[in-house]
């Protein structure tokens, strides 16, 4: 098990109080595993991704532990976390288009970044990886503004994985891309894993169909908690949590026509996390809800590798 997260709680400080963005999440990511983290806006998936590498100033670790390769990750301590970043945990951010310093040549920026981490550039390896993602080698002598959007995206992917981290967090990296580019990027991520540039990966996206294409396991989150986690094909074909089921059945697949089959969404909105309700958080929107749902449903392993947090599962 590469990554082990136990009862992680992360809160956002706001003027109105603490928003419990992550409220007790536990899961693991195995060696060589790509975990797809799916959910709708506000479910805590981005918070989870950020927590594992760098919390921003408004985030606070409220509890729980994270361990990577058997060692504890001091995620709540910015300074002690630093040695782990880049080398053990790395990130491909949402904002690849603006992730590089606009006034430095890319090659120089990489050299300086590595030097500040006490590493030096393995030019041959770097060039091999540029070849792999089909970037010209002279890109290192260019400024970010000279690159197209797709090139920046690939360049950031190469930079982030340069030190072969154990865990890579890819946060919504395809959401701004066209479908054809999205496919190429997603496949490159798989290739990075296959070649051992990264050991395991958390692929965060709101698009379950896309996650399904590359993830080994999919974890669906709802309102700061885990709803369901299972092998990708199981999530898609035999979801057990009512939220997962309703979510998947609301997706119009190519071939589904309104005239033939009218899909429906999930009525209602997720609860506010400033003061989340007791019990199952999906209760208000759930057609199957019953008395017991007033108690928190713990995630239960209903089948090997298939965890569901629902009393009806």
């Amino acid at each position: 098990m590469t990554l082990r997260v136990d009862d992680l709680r992360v809160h956002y400080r706001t003027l109105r109080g603490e928003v419990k963005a992550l409220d007790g999440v536990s899961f693991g990511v195995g060696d060589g595993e790509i975990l797809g983290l799916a959910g709708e806006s506000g479910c805590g998936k981005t918070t989870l991704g950020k927590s594992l590498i760098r919390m921003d100033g408004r985030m606070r670790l409220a509890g729980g532990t994270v361990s990577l390769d058997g060692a504890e990750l001091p995620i709540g301590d910015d300074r002690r976390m630093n040695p782990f970043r880049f080398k053990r945990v790395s990130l491909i951010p949402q904002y690849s288009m603006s992730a590089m310093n606009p006034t430095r040549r890319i090659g120089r920026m990489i050299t300086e970044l590595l030097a500040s981490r006490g590493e030096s550039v393995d030019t041959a390896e770097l060039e091999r990886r540029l070849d792999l993602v089909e970037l010209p080698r002279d890109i290192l002598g260019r400024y970010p503004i000279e690159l197209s959007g797709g090139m920046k995206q690939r360049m950031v992917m190469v930079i982030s994985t340069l030190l072969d981290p154990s865990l890579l967090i890819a946060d919504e990296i395809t959401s701004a891309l066209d479908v054809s580019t999205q496919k190429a990027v997603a496949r490159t991520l798989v290739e990075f894993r296959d070649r051992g540039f990264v050991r395991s990966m958390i692929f965060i996206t709101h698009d379950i169909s896309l996650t399904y294409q590359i993830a080994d396991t999919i974890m669906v989150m709802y309102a700061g908690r885990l709803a369901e986690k299972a092998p990708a094909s199981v999530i898609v074909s035999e979801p057990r949590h009512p939220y997962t089921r309703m979510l998947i059945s609301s997706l119009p697949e190519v071939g589904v026509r309104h005239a033939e089959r009218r899909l429906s969404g999930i009525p209602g909105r997720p609860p506010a996390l400033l003061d989340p309700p007791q019990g199952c958080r999906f209760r208000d929107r759930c057609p199957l809800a019953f008395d017991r749902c007033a108690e928190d449903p713990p995630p239960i392993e209903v089948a090997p590798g298939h965890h569901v947090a629902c009393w009806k599962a």
Partner: protein
Amino acid sequence: MMLSLEGVTKTYRVGAFGTATLTAVDDVSLDLVPGEVVSLIGESGSGKTTLGRTVLGLLTPTRGRITLDGAPARPGKAYYRHVQGVFQDPFSCYNPVFKADRVIKMIKDEYFPGVAASEWEGRIEKSLKDVGLDPGQVLGRYPHQLSGGQLQRLLIARALLLDLRYLVADEITSMLDASTRIDVLNLLADLKSRGLGVLFVTHDLSLGNYISERAVVLYRGQVVESGPTAAVFGNPLHPYTIKLLSSVPRLTARWDGGDPAVPAVEVSAGPSTLVEEEPGHLVRRSGTTLTRSVS
């Protein structure tokens, strides 16, 4: 009442002193009829949004014309009474310093200054009901207090207050969550069945496929394929459409099942024309070859 586009072209001047031109939309012809959803499908740079904005009169076509019921469309109250738009980012559509229902008040001020308050309230209520909104939940609130889905519905309700015939829906669901966007799509479909014509602009093929009667695929400003949705999606003929369809992530099949042999999309520099391959199903072919190679 038909909304038709004839040879609409939009070019921008770019570069130093406008020496270079960029053709965003290239000779697009299209008819919209009541009770039909036409989806305009394309990736970024395809010109779909430019075309949508041109139909709304927010951009002036460089060449070609847009007519409503035979009369040339001119931006102004007369045209906007019948043709309205909803855009991608619901939060950007509302002036953040005002309450959300200001979009409705604007319609009252500009179109119905004489209507009595009580009657107007009744109209608002009806139109909110039509889009599935509870007046108590949306009126008098600030935009940030409402969800993306509610905001989009409110914009549609706003348009319905007018004598609306056509709606340009530009990526209206792409900022919404999966569980709510389908309801907005269903709403469009319902309005269609009540006689509204919808131009549904999207990059998402599955959404276009879900609600539209006809589909138009745009690539670099040109229509590369158009026809009945079932034909375009069931039997795509242009290499670009085929590639696009194969790239869409699906829940029924994984990519690593292997790609179909996708022919390279030729960037046709030479002249090309739309050829009718099946009844109503047009495909762009370069002028010289008329072979039906891909199927």
